[in-house]
C-alpha cells in the first residue's frame, strides 16, 4: 500500500515538475541544443532512488525525466523486448549479461562519464562486464538472514546459517524470498554447492532441500512485503537483500543481520543504455550525475542500499556515519564463497519451474 501511494505521489510530482519549468540551472533550450532532446526516459526499480535525485537532475540540466518502475528483471526484459524504448535502465548483473549477449545494449562512451573514477572497490571489474563497457554500477549488496535476536539466539543463526530454515523450532516464523534465484541460491549454498551449478544431481538435491523446508516449516513466500513484515516483527527469521535489511534494522532495533558463512549472492544493479535509446547523450549525463557524491549520498541514505560511490560508502559506514552501526549496510567484499549470478537461460527456466512446484506443494 505504502509503495503504491509513494508511486502515485511520485508520478504526480513528476507531472508537476514537468509543468513548472526550471527557474535555475540550465533551460530546456540549452538542453535541446546540447543533447538533441530535453526528455530522458528512465526505467528503474520501485523505491530505488533518493527523493530529490530526479528533481535536482531536472533543475540542473533543464530537462524532463519520465520514470517508469519495474518489479523484476524479467518484467523489464519483457517490456524491452516488446520494443519499448528507454534511455537508461537499471537491471541486475545476470540480466545485464543477457542483454549484452543479445545485443540489446549500446557501448558506453566513458569519456562522457568522468565520475566513473568514483566507483567503489567492490563494484569494479565485475565479471558480467569487466571493463564497464556497457554498465555502470548503481547499488550493490548481498543476501543474508535478518532475525529477531529476542526470539532467536544469535549463536544458533551463526552456527546453522541457511540451515536454520530447516530448524523446526522456528516453524511458522519464517519469510522466504519469493524468487527462484534467491531460494535456490540459499539451497545450493546450504548444501555447499555453487549457486551457478547446472549439475542435475545438485539441482535435484537443492529442490529436495526446498521441498523439505516448504513441507515442514510453513514458510511465507514474499517479496517486498518482507520489509514491512520484519519491521512489524511479524516473523522471526527472513532471508533478505542487504539493502532491505538495512532499512529493517534502522526501523526495528530487535532485528539483527547475519551473512551466512556458507556464502551468498553478491549482486549489483547497474545503469545501462539500451540499443534503442532515443537520447543516449542525455543518458550518459544522467549516469555521470548519479555517480556524483551528492546524488549517490542522497540515493544511499534514502534507500539504504550500498552505494557504488566509494566516498559515500566510506562516509555512511564509517565512524559517525548514518549506517555506522548497521551491520547490513556494507556488503562483504572478497569472501571466496560469495558468487555473482551468471546468465543461464536453460538453468533459470528449470529452476523457475521447480520453484513454482515447491510453492504449489501442499
Amino acid at each position: 500500500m505504502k509503495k503504491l501511494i509513494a508511486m502515485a505521489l511520485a508520478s504526480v510530482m513528476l507531472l508537476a515538475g514537468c509543468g513548472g519549468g526550471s527557474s535555475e540551472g540550465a533551460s530546456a533550450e540549452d538542453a535541446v541544443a546540447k543533447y538533441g532532446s530535453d526528455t530522458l526516459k528512465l526505467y528503474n526499480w520501485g523505491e530505488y532512488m533518493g527523493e530529490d535525485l530526479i528533481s535536482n537532475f531536472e533543475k540542473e540540466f533543464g530537462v524532463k525525466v519520465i520514470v517508469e518502475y519495474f518489479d523484476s528483471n524479467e518484467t523489464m526484459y519483457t517490456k524491452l523486448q516488446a520494443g519499448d524504448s528507454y534511455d537508461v535502465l537499471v537491471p541486475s548483473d545476470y540480466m545485464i549479461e543477457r542483454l549484452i549477449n543479445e545485443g540489446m545494449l549500446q557501448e558506453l562512451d566513458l569519456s562522457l562519464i568522468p565520475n566513473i573514477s568514483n566507483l567503489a572497490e567492490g563494484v569494479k571489474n565485475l565479471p558480467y562486464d569487466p571493463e564497464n563497457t556497457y554498465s555502470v554500477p548503481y547499488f550493490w549488496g548481498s543476501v543474508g538472514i535478518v532475525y529477531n535476536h529476542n526470539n532467536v539466539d544469535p549463536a544458533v543463526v551463526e552456527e546453522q546459517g541457511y540451515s536454520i530454515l530447516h530448524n523446526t523450532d522456528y516453524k511458522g516464523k519464517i519469510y522466504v524470498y519469493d524468487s527462484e534465484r534467491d531460494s535456490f541460491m540459499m539451497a545450493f549454498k546450504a548444501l555447499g554447492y555453487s549457486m551457478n551449478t547446472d549439475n542435475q544431481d545438485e539441482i535435484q538435491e537443492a529442490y529436495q532441500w526446498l521441498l523439505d523446508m516448504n513441507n515442514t516449516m510453513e514458510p511465507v513466500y514474499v517479496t517486498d512485503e518482507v520489509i514491512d513484515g520484519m519491521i512489524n516483527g511479524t516473523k522471526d527469521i527472513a532471508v533478505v537483500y542487504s539493502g532491505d535489511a538495512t532499512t529493517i534494522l534502522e526501523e526495528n532495533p530487535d532485528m539483527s543481520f547475519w551473512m551466512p558463512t556458507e556464502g551468498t549472492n553478491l549482486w549489483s544493479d547497474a545503469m545501462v543504455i539500451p540499443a534503442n535509446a532515443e537520447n543516449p547523450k542525455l543518458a550518459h549525463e544522467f549516469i555521470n550525475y548519479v555517480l556524483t557524491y551528492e546524488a549517490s549520498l542522497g540515493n544511499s541514505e534514502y534507500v539504504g542500499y550500498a552505494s557504488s560511490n566509494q566516498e559515500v560508502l566510506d562516509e555512511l559506514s564509517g565512524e559517525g556515519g548514518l549506517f555506522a552501526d548497521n551491520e547490513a549496510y556494507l556488503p562483504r567484499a572478497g569472501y571466496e564463497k560469495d558468487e555473482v549470478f551468471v546468465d543461464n537461460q536453460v538453468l533459470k527456466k528449470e529452476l523457475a519451474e521447480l520453484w513454482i512446484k515447491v510453492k504449489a506443494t501442499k
Partner: protein
Amino acid sequence: MRQFRSMVYPYVVWIAIMIVVPMLMILLYAFTGEGNDVTTFRFTLENFGRFFSDAVFLDVLKRSLIIAIFTTIICVLLGYPIAYAIATGPEKSKMFWILMITLPTWINMLVRTYAWVGILQDDGLLNSFLGLFGIGPFKMMYTTFAVVLGMVYNFIPFMILQIHTSLAKMDKSLLEAASDLGANRMQCFLRVTLPLSLPGVLSGITLVFLPAVSSFFIPKLLGGGQYVLIGNVIETQFLTSGDWNFGSAISLIMAVIIMISMYLTRKVDTDPAANGRGE
C-alpha cells in the same frame, strides 16, 4: 437496415486484430516447442504432456477449481438476497443501491485488493478493531479465507447486477396471478420468481467463475507466494521463466475447461425441463 450493414466491417476488423489473432498466437505457442523463429515451427504435444503428467500441476488445477467454485457459491448465496432486496425494494432507493454496488468497480481492482492487505494483516484495521474488545488477533492474511474473501469482494458486483437485471424485468402480474390461484409467498417465490431469475443467476455464475478461476494477483497478494493457483503458474511461465509455450498450453487447457463449463451452464439455461418454465 441493409444500408447500415457495411458499418459492421470496422468491428469485424477490430475483432480479428484484438481477439482472433491473439487466440491464434496462443494456439500456435501451445502446440509448438521452444526455439521457434518465424520460419521454423516444431509442432509438439509435449507442453500438454508436461502438464498432465505432473501431479503438482494437477493438484494446483484442482485447488483453483475448488476455490473458484467455492467463491461462486458464496457469491450466489450472498448476491441473490441482496439483488432480491434491491429489486423488490422501494423504487427511489434502487438507483442508490446499484450505484453503491458498482462504485467500487470504478477503482482499480489491484488497489482495492491492496486495501484488504491493510485491513486483514496481523496488526491491520480489523485486528486492531477486534483488539478493542479484547478479541484476537486472528491470523487472516495468507490464508484461504483471505483469498476467498478477496475474490468474493471483487467479483460479487457482477453476480448482484446480473440477478438484479433479470428480477427487475420480471412481470409483476405473474406474482399476482400466482397469489390469486392460491400460492403462498414461499410458493410464489419458488415457482415464479426463482425460475424467472435463473438466467441472471447463470450468467452471474459465468461472470464470477471465469475471473475467479484464472485470477493471479488476488492469491498472490492475499495468499502470499505459497498460495499458488493456476493463474500464478501461467504468470510465472510468461514473466519469470519465459516459457511462453508451456504458459500458452496451460492457458489453452483453462480455456477448454471454461468453455465446457459455459456449455453446461447454457444447457441448463435453455433446457425447459431443468428450469421448470415449461414453455
